[in-house]
């Protein structure tokens, strides 16, 4: 039991650091706590900043700055998909498009690409995730998305693309291609989320979205049935993803039903726990919608990326996820039941992803799992270490899901 209270220690540290008293004076003023206080203050004196001269090498500073700007430019290219694929040849028109929002430019670009590589574009339509031409298919879809001029049009297009992904799940499963089926199922979920977001956005700006919601409902009902049928014959490696897609789309279906039948939006959020706020989910300067939808979107990205196996991307998303989690904690209150529930759900999703992931991806996921653990009371309780031999900063409890059955 420490004799020195946190308050006393803080006061003594303040006196020492400000120069108002020396260590000896402070210790003399607190004879009952003298021994312990001396140790703690002497320890404090041994923790000093590095000297000012220790700075990064100027050559490193400069080269890292250049590398940072290049990485930012490269990421923008990659995220723009088609623009990145065709590099400098289309970068300028693409930027012009992005800034002016001129569908004409995108249309001309599409016409050019189809004319230049029409056969390739045609062949790409039959490709599945993992095929060489699948990137072309995705790129063309992004151009279509760029041409969509309104939230309703974007919702319509995402609905059509969701249907395409379901069809890909079917074909991939029939061909015994588990990875492709899994990737297509993830894509399906992503498009369904986008439909909901754009419908929400259109609704928030006063548009009549009843017809869209009804169509979404009908589509989801149909797709649920198709996925259920596919699930029975799917390769084992794709079953969990298809199952998950069904569960999530079932939730989407419920939300669509509630929105059509009842007081739109609000009830749906309460029931489904996934209110989709208006916003722009694409990677545009407007960014993702904020709040719960943002966290959910990030979680989906994170799980999908973890499945893809790119540890660097996972690590980057984890950083983004942690910031969004912090944000949500600030909004809802970290001790609130809803925040805890969100964290629990996210933890379970990530835990599954963790168990399927490779070593580097598992490592990249750990900070997110650790942060979520802190938010879930039953997981935050300290338990004995599991004997992991990993060096580095230890924790009072085993790092997340290692050793779980």
């Amino acid at each position, binding site marked *: 039991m420490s004799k020195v209270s946190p308050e006393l220690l803080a006061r003594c540290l303040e006196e020492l650091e400000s120069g108002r008293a020396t260590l000896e004076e402070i210790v003399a003023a607190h004879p009952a706590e003298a021994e312990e206080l001396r140790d703690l203050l002497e320890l404090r004196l041994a923790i000093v900043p590095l*000297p000012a001269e220790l700075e990064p090498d100027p050559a490193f500073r400069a080269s890292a700055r250049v590398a940072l700007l290049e990485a930012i430019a490269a990421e923008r290219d990659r995220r723009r998909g088609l623009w990145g694929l065709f590099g400098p040849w289309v970068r300028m028109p693409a930027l012009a498009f992005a800034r002016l929002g001129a569908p004409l430019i995108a249309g001309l670009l599409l016409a050019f690409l189809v004319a230049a590589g029409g056969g390739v574009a045609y062949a790409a339509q039959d490709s599945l995730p993992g095929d060489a031409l699948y990137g072309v298919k995705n790129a063309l879809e992004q151009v279509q998305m760029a041409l969509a001029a309104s939230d309703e049009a974007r919702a319509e297009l995402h609905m059509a693309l969701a249907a395409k992904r379901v069809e890909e799940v079917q074909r991939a499963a029939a061909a015994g291609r588990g990875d492709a089926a899994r990737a297509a199922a993830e894509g399906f979920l992503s498009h369904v989320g986008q439909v909901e977001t754009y419908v929400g956005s259109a609704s928030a700006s006063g548009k009549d979205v009843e017809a869209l919601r009804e169509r979404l409902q009908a589509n989801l009902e149909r797709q649920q049935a198709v996925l259920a049928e596919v699930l029975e014959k799917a390769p084992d490696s794709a079953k969990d993803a298809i199952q998950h897609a069904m569960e999530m789309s079932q939730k989407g279906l419920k939300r669509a039903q509630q929105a059509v039948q009842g007081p739109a939006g609000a009830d749906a959020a309460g029931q489904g726990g996934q209110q989709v706020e208006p916003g722009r989910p694409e990677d545009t300067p407007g960014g993702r919608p904020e709040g719960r939808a943002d966290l959910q979107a990030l979680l989906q990205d994170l799980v999908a990326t973890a499945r893809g196996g790119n540890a660097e991307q996972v690590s980057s998303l984890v950083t983004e996820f942690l910031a969004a989690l912090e944000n949500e904690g600030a909004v809802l209150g970290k001790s609130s039941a809803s925040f805890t529930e969100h964290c629990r759900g996210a933890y379970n999703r990530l835990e599954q992803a963790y168990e399927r992931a490779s070593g580097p991806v598992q490592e990249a996921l750990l900070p997110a799992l650790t942060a979520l653990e802190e938010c879930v009371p039953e997981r935050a309780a300290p338990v004995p270490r599991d004997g992991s031999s990993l060096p580095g900063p230890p924790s009072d409890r085993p790092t997340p899901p290692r050793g779980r059955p």
Partner: protein
Amino acid sequence: MEEAVELGQRGHAPVDEGPLVEAAIAGDAQAFAQLYDLYVTRVYRHIYYRVGRKEDAEDLTQQVFLQAWRAIRSYRRTEVPFVAWLLTIASNAVISFYRKNRPTQPLEQDVRSSSAGGLWADPEGEALARFDREEVRRAILKLRPEQQQVVLMRFIEQMEYPEIAAALGKSEGNVRVILHRALLQLRQLVAR
């Protein structure tokens, strides 16, 4: 009073980072590069203290800024100083670094023994001190991540309690308690 002089270098020159941060959030890479110019040294030094090797500190510093760029749109509503947010990312990066099976590095010998400023500000003080600074540094790296973060933000980054509390989403009282426990834990670690 020598300690007080050494420890009294609290705070950093105030910089109006607001417009740069806003521009960076809006997607302006050049504005972000200016934020890099402002904070690269501080992030590097923070990381260097924890990893002890120039090459690792450089790699991680680069990684932190790239991650910060990717996440910057989430920063908008966190309401903590930008540098504190960067240091939180740095902290996560260091934790990941150590999880990749690397032993804690002693600080580089040439930096430790350099007479041109030395690693530590007062080599004489170090010689007379009861605790060896390098030993204490290594002990800090054995604390729980949260304790490490508070100790480093307070004693190395010389951040005030309210700043640390905002950065970590905790109350000031909570930060004091974490610091108290961390020092008690350190005392045990260096006594072994």
